[in-house]
């Protein structure tokens, strides 16, 4: 099971658990209808499109309304603490939720009580909470953007708003140093997918791959383009790809979806998500083959 956990911008949405399905611009989960906009809804929608294409079961979702008060987020944390061992998903993606360090630590402990600890992905404020709580290394994969990488590289910061100025002002040419710092201070998950003008994939402190084509600068402006990467990575890992291959495919698919959707700064995330099936049909096999060939060549040398 792929379990995605997060919040939705609907104050009245109770904690809702169920299989998610994207129908038009609405995400349907257990009788609830959630507009597919930036945030966890975009992540789940991208995961749905990926799993549908791969003929895999759709993601199971735990969603709750939260306008920032944190009430919904706390319900979500408590539910995970109580139920994660029983649910025993193969992959968990933790996403938009009020970062609460103590509760995130207990969620990670609950994950370890499952028969097999799930593959744990954190993005957005779930990643902030894991880093601030000092448990980043318990996670398998983080998906920071450049400003969030600066946050991971700053050993003292508990939120990206308090990152040291020199780290925030670092441009993308300093990504290797920031990746190294994040691993050195124990603030990185085993694998990092750094999203940006050039995407970087790192594992165990080493940058394995970078990608900057197709170059679609407008993607940075579109709310949800990071969420879709996290959703695709989660879905691909769940479908059996190793995490580095999943990351390589997801960043390629995101950029290509931007190309297919002729992305501008005014493009909405749903337009990119709708392009994903065509992106996969045109490229998935070819990318998987290229990635395997490259890996085989590297291991032979």
């Amino acid at each position, binding site marked *: 099971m792929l379990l995605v956990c997060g919040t939705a*911008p609907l104050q009245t949405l109770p904690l809702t658990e169920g299989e998610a399905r994207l129908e038009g611009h609405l995400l349907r989960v257990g009788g609830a209808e959630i507009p597919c906009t930036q945030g966890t809804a975009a992540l789940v929608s991208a995961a749905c499109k990926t799993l549908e294409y791969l003929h895999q079961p759709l993601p199971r979702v735990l969603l709750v309304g939260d306008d920032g008060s944190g009430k919904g987020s706390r319900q979500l944390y408590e539910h995970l603490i109580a139920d994660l061992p029983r649910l025993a998903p193969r992959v968990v993606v933790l*996403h938009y939720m009020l970062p*609460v*360090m103590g509760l995130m*630590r207990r969620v990670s402990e609950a994950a370890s009580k499952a028969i097999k600890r799930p593959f744990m992905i954190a993005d957005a404020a779930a990643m902030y909470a894991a880093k601030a709580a000092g448990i980043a290394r318990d996670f398998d994969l983080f998906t920071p953007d450049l400003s*969030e990488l600066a946050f991971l590289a700053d050993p003292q910061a508990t939120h990206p*708003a308090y990152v040291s100025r020199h780290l925030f002002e670092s441009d993308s040419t300093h990504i290797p140093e920031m990746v190294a710092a994040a691993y050195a201070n124990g603030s990185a998950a085993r694998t990092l997918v750094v999203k940006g003008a050039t995407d970087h994939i790192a594992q165990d402190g080493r940058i394995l791959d970078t990608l900057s084509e197709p170059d679609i600068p407008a993607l940075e402006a579109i709310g949800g383009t990071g969420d879709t990467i996290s959703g695709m990575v989660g879905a691909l890992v769940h479908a059996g790809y190793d995490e580095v291959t999943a990351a390589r495919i997801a960043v390629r698919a995101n950029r290509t979806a931007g190309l297919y959707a002729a992305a501008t700064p005014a493009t909405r995330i749903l337009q990119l998500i709708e392009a994903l099936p065509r992106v996969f049909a045109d490229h998935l096999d070819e990318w998987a083959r290229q990635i395997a060939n490259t890996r085989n060549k590297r291991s032979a040398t």
Partner: protein
Amino acid sequence: MFFKSGKKNGFEGGGIVLFESVEEAMSGERALKAAEIENRLVAPPPELRRGCDLALEINLVEKPAVERLLRSRQAHFIDILPMKGDAELLQVVKVTDFGEALMVKAGNMKLTFDKTSGVVLNISGGGCPDIPYLHARMLGVPLEEAPRPKEMGRTLCALMLDRAYEQSLEIRKNGNG
């Protein structure tokens, strides 16, 4: 007064509210409790100590909500600071010109608006739960009519979005947008 430094009830907020007097700290605690904002009375770390020996530990991420509530209750406080690391919120703002649109980035938040109409085209970045909420309310609305993130939002992500919003308004006012 003695305070345990342990993580009682699992609460560990990373932010501290400093007060001039014990009475003000107690009154601040009552105001936050009534609003169901998690907090606990603590002794401020020596390096941050200003005012009295009693402070409130809060979830730093909720700084804007705490600040707004304390001000609305006339509960006086000196400052709200992170318990470790840089004490200053990021002030740096970066601007990217897309031709017909401008993207203004403050911290982890980016706001993009149409240069001609001033309409908010996109909001990206961030991770706190009030961001999708603000996203839904601000998109498609001219900057001058959009709700103020600082007033509707509750978290540091919303505060960063407010910085981007404020800068965007400034750019428009100066005729550069």
